[in-house]
């Protein structure tokens, strides 16, 4: 897959900006209905909790994900809305590419090229894996 094609997919999907957005989407692609606490989600995808919550918000706003409405419970049911007619097969195509380590790095690279990372309170959110910063290669893959 050429970087330009990945860029086209990202343009069509529109909402993805941060690696965490993609990793969450990948998680929900594998687990289309997940009943979890956001803390647990953060452990699964390897980013800090504020970033995961921001990314969840973005995915839900874009209509890619919905969650159960009851906010009084610690856990929520997250459902990937893969059948969305707006997105068609673009999302599936992108997620298939990102399902391999090389593809994932290529999408990360394309995300970085595409626009500057979102800022939150003046600090660029740093992806973490298992509590540690993501290796530099994840941020700047040799695509």
């Amino acid at each position, binding site marked *: 897959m050429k970087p330009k094609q990945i860029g086209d997919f990202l343009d069509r999907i529109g909402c993805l900006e941060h690696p965490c957005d993609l990793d969450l989407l990948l998680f929900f692609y594998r687990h289309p*209905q*997940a*009943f979890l606490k956001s803390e647990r989600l953060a452990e699964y995808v390897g980013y800090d909790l504020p970033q995961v919550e921001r990314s969840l918000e973005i995915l839900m706003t874009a209509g890619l994900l919905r969650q*159960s409405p009851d906010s009084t419970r610690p*856990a929520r*049911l997250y459902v990937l809305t893969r*059948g969305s007619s707006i997105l068609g097969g673009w999302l599936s195509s992108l997620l298939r590419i990102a399902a391999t380590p090389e593809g994932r790095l290529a999408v990360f690279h394309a995300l970085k090229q595409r626009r500057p990372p979102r800022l939150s309170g003046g600090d660029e959110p740093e992806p973490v894996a298992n509590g540690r910063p993501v290796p530099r290669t994840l941020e700047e893959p040799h695509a």
Partner: protein
Amino acid sequence: MPEPDLVKTGIKGLDEVLFGGFPRGNIILVAGTAGTGKTTFGVEFVYRGASQFNEPGVIVLFEVAPDKLIRDAALFGWDLRELERNGRLKMIFTTRQLFQQELQQADSQLLAEAAEIGARRIFVDGLVRLPESNAGDSRDAFHLLAEGLHRENLTAMLALESTFADPAAARAPEEFVADTIVRLSIEPVQRAVLRSLEIVKSRGHEFALGRHTFRIINGQGLEVYRRVQAPRGLLRERGAAFDPTTRVTTGVPGLDELVNGGYFVASTTLVVGISGAGKSVMALQYIAEGARRGERGLMITLDEPPAQVLRNAHSIGIDLQAFIDKGLVHLWYEPPQEFEIDRHFAQIEAIVEDFKPRRAVIDSLSTYGSSLGPAERSFRDFFHAIVALMKEHQVTAVYNHENPEMLGMSSMMGEFKVSSLVDNIILMNWVELGDSFRHALTVAKMRAMPTSRTTHECEIANGQGMKVLPRPIRAALPVVPFAGYLGLISRSPERRSPPMVSETP
């Protein structure tokens, strides 16, 4: 007595073991070590419910990602994604703790999801046992979980990981709470492995006790083979024919006269003899004779593959392939290595039920003995079961049995102590005369029919098969009463000299 409301599993062979299915609403614990097939079992239970019985279902996963489950299920031909799209299945990924907590909520979101699609079945994959020191907590926690599921009237299957190979050591507190316990195991047999399943308990219905073999088959799923020893229906036990007039002809010229015109319908005949004595030739003639009369015949061969059987038949002038093509003969071969006897018997049962043969030949019984061990209970149980099966379906069956003794026989079946089950016994012997071995045949036993137990010479001619030669000399020999012999009981009779009679004038 009210009929129990049973939930059919749809798993091939399992509903027979369960006498119809699991009682609706039961909490079913599926226990077993890693690799025993718990996940496949549970997924098939839900899949069959949703796809065949209009019972939508939910699968709850703690460790396996749903996309992997979908991929693995596809190998069995189960399209889980399609069921999801049609609103007949939900797969929910969560944690054990959350699942437990949810079931204790009056307004559980998980159960609301299940209710949304009208779920009737649920499979929870990957419950784990607490350490022994926490047995009380575990039982209590499981009880709460079971209550939550019961409240929703879901028939729930819960896969419980066991780390113990020894079932006795695997007694878990959960087992006392569950309504049904299915234990799956995988055990080494020689250098192979055998999967088995046991219904340890099941509240609210009868089921077949004991360990039943099963396989996991690509493109299909599980297939359970009811243990051979398990009693079948009463019909089978009452299946012995009561037809004293009809005779089933043997196809061997000259033999029918020795067996009163033929075997009784549904009788069991054993043909015993050393290799090369003509047993398989007789078997082919028996099957071919039936086919010529329009009677279906089943030939089960363990020693020779089909091509070889066809060739052998051709050499004695029988076009077996033509009979097969006409649907009159079913030739079934299974190599005897690594027999799974429950599965083997289930296959024979299915063939008999579908093909409906009038005649059957099993070639040979001794091969079963070699595979199962002649003195083993499993061999005798298998033989009992197959005799009962044939009688139930009114099949007149002939079993070949290889006796290793070349000249004469000191016992009919050697280590195989099942001759009491047999109605007729035909002994095939070599007789050494001059520089030749010649074929000899003796009808040693015919239940409910007279038999002379005389030995007859046989001949196997190329292109013609076997025939029993007439005994023209019989009339020339006087029948000497027992009183004319010495040493009868010691099996070495000698003619007694005529008594000296002194005549007194």
